């Protein structure tokens, strides 16, 4: 049996699926699509493939929903659309009579001039970053006194469409990537956000960013079909310096759209703790995952325009350590694979979204298992 196999195909979206996102405890999976909706999926013993659609979030956007992300507390989903808005949905405590999760649209963030491409919550859940075709990256802050989101900064150093934003997991440093072929890092100083660094190694649009659990390494992917790994080298400055560590090319047959760093055992344990603390008041959640031992070594997954899903595994020790292609699924979707995300609570579970309108769930076993 293949070490990377599909465990479920989730049908429901009626147009291409752009993005998938696991809830922080790994119990729920959100997906968004050109069909203007967000679907929230949960595992279910009653259904054939073990999954059911627990909620359909409609009427938040008038065009494609391009990206969605869960708040660290798991109670909010932020979703951005080509209609220029960012919608924030809040999960209600109750469920509907049909057993569906109830969600409420609590805020619509306007400001981008046109298509918004990506959204990400900071580790503390107080900051929200968005980016888009207007070449800008916006940071919004939740204001408890107003009960609303306020624009903290608009960063306009990118010279073209900004494709994606992700926060570092260990501090409030934002990473963005763009059609201008750069990856940029942003930090705050004296109330002002500023451009911390620009990483220039890509030679085409940079589509995806992922940071590892400790926030020491970054992986970026793009139209140059390269997977670039970056490492943070501490120096006299507050945030250190990022330098390219290695580049993997030749493994992909098309633009790489998405990359994600597999959780370590520590990450998964943190997710499990979060799950335990919320499970008491959850009624629609899935099955718990128990203690998971990790994958044994750092591991990355990529989703690409050659319809394939790939997993890269790091082998070797110290300076000799290097990522190599471990397994690939050539026709993971019948069309581009737009997004790949590891389940944060571990177990080697992945989700992908593709042009074939499907969300697929996968199970991966590292070499030697």
């Amino acid at each position: 049996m293949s070490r990377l196999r599909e465990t479920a195909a989730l049908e429901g979206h009626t147009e291409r699926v752009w993005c998938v996102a696991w809830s922080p405890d790994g119990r729920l999976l959100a997906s968004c699509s050109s069909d203007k909706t967000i679907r929230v999926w949960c595992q279910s013993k009653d259904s054939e493939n073990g999954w059911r659609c627990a909620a359909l979030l409609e009427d938040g956007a008038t065009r494609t929903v391009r990206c969605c992300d869960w708040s660290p507390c798991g109670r909010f989903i932020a979703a951005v659309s080509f209609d220029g808005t960012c919608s924030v949905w809040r999960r209600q405590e109750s469920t509907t009579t049909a057993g569906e999760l109830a969600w409420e649209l609590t805020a619509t963030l306007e400001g981008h001039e046109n298509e918004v491409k990506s959204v990400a919550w900071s580790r503390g859940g107080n900051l929200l970053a968005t980016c888009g075709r207007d070449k800008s990256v916006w940071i919004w802050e939740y204001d408890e006194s107003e009960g609303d989101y306020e624009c903290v900064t608009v960063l306009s150093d990118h010279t073209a469409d900004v494709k994606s934003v992700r926060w570092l997991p260990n501090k409030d440093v934002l990473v963005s990537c763009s059609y201008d072929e750069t990856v940029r890092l942003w930090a705050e100083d004296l109330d002002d956000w500023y451009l911390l660094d620009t990483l220039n190694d890509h030679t085409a649009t940079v589509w995806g960013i992922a940071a590892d659990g400790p926030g020491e390494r970054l992986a970026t992917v793009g139209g140059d079909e390269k997977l670039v790994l970056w490492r943070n080298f501490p120096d006299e400055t507050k945030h250190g310096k990022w330098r390219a560590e290695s580049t993997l090319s030749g493994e992909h047959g098309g633009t790489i759209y998405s990359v994600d760093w597999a959780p370590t055992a520590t990450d998964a344990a943190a997710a499990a703790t979060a799950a335990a603390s919320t499970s008491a008041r959850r009624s629609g959640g899935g099955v718990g995952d128990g203690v998971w031992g990790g994958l044994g070594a750092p591991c990355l997954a990529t989703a690409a325009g050659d319809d394939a899903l790939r997993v890269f595994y790091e082998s070797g020790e110290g300076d000799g350590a290097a990522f190599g292609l471990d397994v690939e699924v050539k026709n993971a979707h019948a069309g581009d694979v737009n997004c790949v995300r590891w389940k944060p609570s571990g177990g080697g579970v992945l989700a992908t979204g593709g042009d074939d309108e499907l969300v697929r769930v996968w199970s991966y076993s590292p070499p030697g298992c």
Partner: protein
Amino acid sequence: MASVLLGDLDDFIAPGQACINPLFTTAADSAPATAAAAESAGSKGGAAMVLEIEDDRGPLDAMAVEEVVKPDLIRASNTQTAKVSLDDCLACSGCVTSAETVLITQQSTGKLREAVASGRYSVVVASITPQARASLAERFGLSPAETHARLLAFLRERHGVHHLVDSSLGADFSLLEAGEEFVQRWRSINSGRSGPEGGRAKLGAAVGEGAPARPPLAAWVAPPPTVALSSTRRFNVELGEEEDNRMQQQRQGQVSNCASGVVSGKRGREGEEAARNSMAVEEGECARRPRGPGELLVLTSACPGWVCYAEKTAPEALPFMSTVKSPQQMMGVLAKRVFPRAWNHPHPSVAAAAAVTAAADEVSRVRDSASNGATPAASTLANETLDQSTPPPVRSRGVFHVSIAQCYDKKLEASRKDFRHPDLDGDAEVDLVLTTAEVLELIEESASAADATLTSTSPASPGRDAASDYFRRHFPPGDLAEPLAPGFPVGQAAVSVDGLSLFGGVDGEGAAGGNSDGYLEYVFRHAAVELFGVDLAGRPLVYREGRNADFRETSLEVNGQVALRFAYAYGFRNIQSILAKARRGKCPYHFVEVMACPSGCVNGGGQIKPKKKEGPRDTRLRVERVSEVLREGRVPRGPRDNPVVQAVYSELVGGGPGESRARELLHTSYHNVPKLELSNPHMSPW
């Protein structure tokens, strides 16, 4: 070249690098773009580039390809150069402000030389903002007054400029009109509304019971898209016909308010409570009282970056904008309409006291002209004046007005058709805008030219650079008290008549607002007196800092209730906060002083910056230094104490602030710029 600085603009609304509107690019430019687009679509496996309508990867990247194949307007060969005027920029929604290539070609130091050399102008007037002057003063380590005096000498000697006037002379008119406009809008909104329920109905729904009929209040809705034709005419894109600008101004003046349709009923009733409480004490005023915060919203419009942004991406804000002309454009009115009168006729109101004759006038002007005899225009003028017993009258068209400002977007403002008046034969009020950094370039050019000829001179003293040395050594201060025209009550710098203190600066300007032109401070005090009989003269306003130093608010409480609530919102992020609040009908402010630059105009994109890129802390320190210099030697003075104000209102305007003739001359209007997608469907395939 200014382009280097443009790229480093520390302004949150940065200009585009190159024009993206394919209407202005040549066929040769667009061909590769199309090819690349097809390729891009092909690489995704699609057959035709526009098949997948909402594809993040196909047509969209085709758009961006257009940006990569930049039409370089400056370096392109003559046959290929697309002609884009700043006026085109204003009517195009492709960039928020304008492509910097266009800015540079249309408004540069070269244009000043051309104008002076053309001989078309008999008088060249420069105006300088206090913020720009402070930036130069900080650079040269001089006081603002000395900087002004030396700059006057420099511009006279090297660039054929006759007068250098402090633009706060014009800013006073902006303040007076803004104060009156606020009071008028307040009264317009709060009149005829004495119903018990406060009338905070949902949009379009009936007004609260018992409230008399009143005009429908403007909600957060964009006006129809229009394009400016002149100061009086506009083209309505929706109707396809011309309109009168003044109608729109009047509409704005009467019905603007803060998204009144969606303010909650609860808030309305609370406000009613406030009105009732205050009624007990001050009965005479209660009809004008607001029923709740957020009913009236006035957004200042002196910042051209903010105006461009609102016109192109937040047109819903336009009905709430103040229609008052900015200080720069007020200076335009003075330079083109008021100064010529003064030059031609000794100022009547002060003629007797001034005891100057027409002969003195002549002598004075001959002297001015002689001082720049190198230019053909000046020598012609000198000959003419010598040959005739009376000088030829200076006409508006014979005045060239150059504004020295801290801001690149001021160039765009000056180019607006809204400032082309039919009775000035369609001439602009401001012919050219130079930024502070560009003026420094002029000085540096002269300095290095002087260096080349005077190689024997000792090297620049340590700690000071060549330009600074040159400026200090070669240009002894001109006489700031020398009147602009015989009998004119204001001197070259718009300094006080004793020649010592600079004008400008209203009470309490030490707060954040002092870095711009003091709208909030003045309007707040004016409204407090006019609407509530509270005189705040000599009392500093107390500010509460918001989420950052660029957001501050202050309020006036009358009988324990908030009567006025004003805010500063500087920088793009705070503009967004205000817009977001207004959109939701939750904007609690009556008046917001809006500026696009963080820290306001002292930190304008055109200010002098160090050659090497500075970090956020360095910028902050530099801005603080310039702010300090800005306040040096300024004597707080109400706009009515400006000696020109009385004369202009009585002689030119023929009425007080806010009256109909003042609305024609001293106000302007804004446009919902048609979306690029609408004006050029080829631009975006979806």
